[in-house]
């Protein structure tokens, strides 16, 4: 969006507003169509690709396509294997693959140049449309809370409801009734901080990345020198962002695996 009349805050505000549709009364009953549709498209495309490759998977000499998918899968599988010591193939390893691949591609939307995409969305009639689902806190919280629910589910499944409650009160400090409150407080803080740190880390990284791209884009509107250095720094930031995108996806996956395998271990 060329900024003839826009002020900088309008420019950034325009880029950072969601395509929100109210579906009920109150501020909670709102859906961010851009987040949902972008992530759904990515999910369908990426997991459709995986499914298409896997459906024709051969145990003989693999095609390049299959070898590539196997590389990704074995990378994830190795990570899970080094952390989790149960039967990972039933649930945890596929979960880790889902998280890693999906988050990776949602993050990778950050590579799309913000202004060109805004122009494109404008042409197809979308005024507010954000490309990066993981820079929406709803998306990262959705993933983190799902993992959180799974964590509690596996904790109860492995230890039983009684065992889980026992662990809430009796770990990590001991079984003495006098320190039950301390244990409970400790565990509650842990249960609250886990999804928060899990989701905010990813959100913060992606959101900050987007804002820096926007600031550089704004600089480019100030004149020739701004355009030149904006482009230069934008390229630098994009290259650095390749690392961040992959690293954050990897960290998100690793934390998912760690949380759920911790839920499998009794103290």
């Amino acid at each position: 969006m060329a900024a003839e009349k826009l002020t900088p805050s309008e420019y950034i505000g325009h880029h950072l507003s969601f395509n929100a549709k109210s579906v009920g009364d109150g501020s909670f009953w709102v859906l961010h169509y851009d987040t949902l549709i972008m992530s759904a498209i990515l999910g369908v495309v990426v997991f459709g690709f995986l499914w298409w490759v896997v459906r024709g998977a051969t145990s003989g000499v693999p095609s390049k396509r299959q070898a590539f998918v196997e590389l990704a899968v074995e990378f994830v599988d190795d990570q899970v294997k080094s952390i989790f010591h149960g039967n990972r193939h039933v649930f945890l390893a596929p979960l880790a693959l889902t998280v890693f691949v999906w988050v990776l591609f949602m993050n990778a939307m950050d590579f799309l140049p913000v202004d060109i995409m805004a122009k494109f969305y404008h042409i197809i009639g979308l005024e507010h449309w954000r490309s990066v689902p993981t820079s929406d806190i709803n998306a990262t919280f959705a993933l983190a809370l799902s993992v959180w629910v799974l964590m509690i589910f596996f904790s109860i499944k492995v230890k039983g409801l009684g065992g889980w409650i026992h662990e809430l009160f009796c770990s990590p400090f001991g079984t003495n009734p006098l320190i039950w409150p301390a244990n409970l407080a400790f565990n509650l803080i842990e249960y609250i901080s886990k999804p928060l740190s899990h989701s905010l880390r990813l959100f913060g990284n992606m959101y900050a990345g987007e804002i820096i791209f926007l600031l550089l884009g704004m600089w480019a509107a100030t004149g020739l020198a701004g355009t030149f250095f904006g482009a230069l720094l934008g390229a630098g930031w994009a290259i650095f962002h390749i690392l961040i995108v992959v690293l954050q996806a990897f960290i998100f996956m690793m934390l998912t695996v760690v949380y759920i395998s911790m839920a499998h271990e009794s103290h």
Partner: protein
Amino acid sequence: MNINLTLFAQAVSFAILIWFTVKFVWPPLLKAIETRQKTIADGLAAGERGKQELEAATQRSTAAVEEAKLKASSIIAQAEKRATDIIEEAKNNAKAEGDRILAGAKAEIDQEVNRAKEGLRAQVSALAVAGAEKILRKEIDAKVHADMLNTIANEL
């Protein structure tokens, strides 16, 4: 930074993707990978087995060659011994034959000598008679003194 219904909608799509991966993506690929791993492991094991078999066969063949060499040398030794025996026997036989021939020849020579002696004896007596006849032509009648002449001839 506003939490809203998007969170739950996103969680639902996450759940669907997890289900899809668990159900349709992971198992076939895992099966393919594990089957291939097994095939490779089997191949490696077969190779190892083949190597061991080759080693065993080499050992067996070496042993067989050794045995054959041993047998051959014993056969040669036997043959040499037999050859010496035969030569020894032949020598003995030849010696015995030679002795026999020698003995025969000696006996023959003795016979010849005796015969010659007989002949000589007869001739000497005849010669003596002839000499005596010449000397005693007139006094001795051969017919009368025949007995005496015979006695002399026998004594010679």
